[in-house]
């Protein structure tokens, strides 16, 4: 064994380690473990081994190696191998335990190295190399173990930079290393460059201007970027269709003052007077009873299946007919709720599973129903001076989206705002804030604990970070163009 300098990382050779663990260790040593360890390709170059003692035959293999080279070993195993010659790292392995074992071996090697130097200075007749190394056992080659070959041949070719072969399994190239051990095979790891996908990468787009013209474009773009995610809107809609749908969902008010919102009866609605009121009541009932709840609205019948989080609706929520149903006041006795018995519930559940065209995600259905009912109006119960705080984001991948909805959610979760404050701060038409408010109200996603709202009143949302803005721009741009 050569002179060991503790200031250098410990040179380790991975022996009898499964490809999985080998990949992990290579990554670890290639990153933060690099201060303590450095990987070498052959046992001859190593100061020490790292061996998985739970690997079949590994213990015997290392003992044979040790008999020849006297190199220490970090043994990874579930149980303590009870071997004073090894540094045991118990599984599951932690980074700290590995580093500790490495440091311990380094210290021991340093001590041995110092002892050797002292000895050399007094006894020049004894070579350092032969000092610690016992004579080879007869008939034993360092590379005759079948395990080494097994490990090498199944190596997944992991690279320290994190670029790996992945599903495209590159077989490791086996080459002979001349001048070291005659029969040591080393896996030469092919360098891999990540292959660029054949997708369009559009150049960076300047930030949106606040002018009216660009804002309109932004509204369309913002909607186009998300419209694909609503289940029933996977078809491509024209700009005119998008505008028309937005009007049904959000109304068409530009900016309305606080006082006007409350004073103008046309801008107010009471959900109890609409289908939405019964839908919300049905949802509560279904949640409480854990049974399927039927809403009869002649000639239609809707079913809420809370345990599956689904609604069975004969009308497509994106249809004009459903929009009209939601916006029309119900007459007394026109809508009825029924809790179904077990037999009927099971029949409905079967239909839910077989008639996917009539089945809708519960949240998405309530969200759309809330927006179609409000159509830019506010609930008559709204207190315009109240600051609201969003407790949870709506399920944006499944609900019907409209411009600025995600941005409103982000802002409203960070800090409590009045409706008008959000619109002003974001410089957007208030109809989008009203629409978002209505949708969230239907889903009960606002914070109700006053103490939590007060905690966040003085919070300043973080400022725009360059990289985050650029990445956001890239993602939204891609969605809009895809």
């Amino acid at each position, binding site marked *: 064994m050569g002179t060991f300098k503790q200031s250098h990382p410990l040179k380790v050779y991975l022996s009898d380690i*499964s490809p*999985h663990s080998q*990949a*992990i260790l290579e*990554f*670890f040593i290639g990153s*933060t473990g690099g201060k303590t360890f450095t990987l070498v390709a052959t046992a001859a170059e190593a100061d020490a081994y790292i061996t998985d003692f739970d690997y079949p035959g590994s213990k015997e293999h290392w003992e044979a190696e040790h008999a020849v080279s006297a190199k220490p070993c970090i043994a990874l195993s579930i149980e303590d191998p009870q071997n004073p010659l090894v540094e045991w790292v118990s599984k*599951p392995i932690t*980074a700290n335990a*590995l580093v500790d074992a490495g440091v311990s071996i380094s210290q021991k090697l340093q001590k041995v190295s110092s002892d050797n130097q002292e000895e050399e200075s007094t006894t020049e007749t004894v070579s350092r190399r032969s000092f610690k190394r016992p004579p080879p056992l007869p008939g034993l080659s360092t590379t005759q173990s079948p395990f080494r070959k097994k490990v090498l041949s199944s190596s*997944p070719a*992991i690279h320290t930079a*994190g*670029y*790996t*072969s*992945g*599903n495209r399994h590159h077989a490791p190239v086996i080459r002979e290393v001349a001048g070291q051990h005659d029969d040591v095979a080393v896996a030469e790891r092919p360098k*891999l460059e*990540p*292959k*660029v996908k054949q*997708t369009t*990468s559009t150049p*960076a787009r300047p*930030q*949106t201007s606040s002018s009216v013209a660009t804002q309109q474009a932004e509204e369309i773009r913002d909607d186009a970027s998300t419209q694909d*995610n609503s289940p029933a809107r996977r078809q491509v809609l024209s700009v005119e269709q998008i505008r028309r749908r937005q009007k049904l969902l959000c109304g068409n008010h530009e900016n309305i003052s606080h006082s006007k919102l409350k004073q103008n009866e046309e801008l107010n609605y009471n959900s109890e007077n609409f289908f939405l009121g019964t839908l919300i009541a049905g949802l509560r009932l279904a949640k409480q009873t854990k049974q399927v709840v039927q809403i009869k609205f002649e000639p239609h019948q809707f079913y809420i299946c809370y345990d599956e*989080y689904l609604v069975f609706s004969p009308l497509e929520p994106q249809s004009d007919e459903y929009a009209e149903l939601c916006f029309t006041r119900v007459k007394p006795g026109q809508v009825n709720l029924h809790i179904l018995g077990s037999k009927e519930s099971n029949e409905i559940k079967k239909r839910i599973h077989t008639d996917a065209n009539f089945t809708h*995600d519960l949240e998405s259905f309530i969200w759309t129903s809330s927006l179609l009912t409000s159509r830019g109006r506010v609930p008559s119960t709204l207190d315009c001076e109240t600051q609201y705080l969003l407790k*949870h*984001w709506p*399920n*944006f*991948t*499944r609900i019907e989206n409209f411009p600025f909805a*995600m*941005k409103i*959610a*982000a*802002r409203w*979760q*960070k800090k409590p705002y009045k409706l008008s404050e959000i619109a002003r701060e*974001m410089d957007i038409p208030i109809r989008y804030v009203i629409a978002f408010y209505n949708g969230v109200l239907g889903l009960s996603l606002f914070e109700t604990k006053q103490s939590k709202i007060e905690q966040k009143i003085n919070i300043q949302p*973080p*400022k*725009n*970070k360059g*990289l985050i*803005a*650029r*990445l*956001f*721009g*890239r*993602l*939204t741009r*891609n*969605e809009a163009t*895809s």
Partner: protein
Amino acid sequence: MSQINRKIIFTGPVGSGKTTAINSISDIDIVSTNQNASDMTQKRKRDTTVAMDYGVIKLGNDEKVHLYGTPGQERFDFMWSILTKGGIGLVLLLDNTRKDSFNDMKFYTNSFKDFIEEHQMVVGITQTDRQRTPSISQYREWLDELGYEAPIFEVDARKREDISLLLQGLLLSLDPGVAE
């Protein structure tokens, strides 16, 4: 020109769709280390990620955001603290078909506790087309119980638009004024 290297980490249990999600959003073919699963993992997935997945979103001018997926198997959790260095946020994917999704959420939020507190997390629920329960409402309650605040969306890891929205949620949570 100096390169800015920031990461987004994808984590979650075996089979939750980390590899697929990265593949959906990455500008390069994902660099993966999937291997045939040889242990309990095999019950859930034929092959599994043993070290990590790697993908990239290119922003132009040599600027990139690296996407790293943690190995699904818990025995490799010592790598997680390494992977999160330089991270801007965490994407936690949870498989809705697993037996104890709450425990999964608890385990992963606890494992990345420090990182989440310093940065931001977003949660994607996968496989909801195969199993509807627990509902997203239930996940929100669990998140409350664990004391975390994060957007939760149902996602299909194969769909770029779902993963894109998930990442947009992450970025907007980091900075609500990001797009203004």
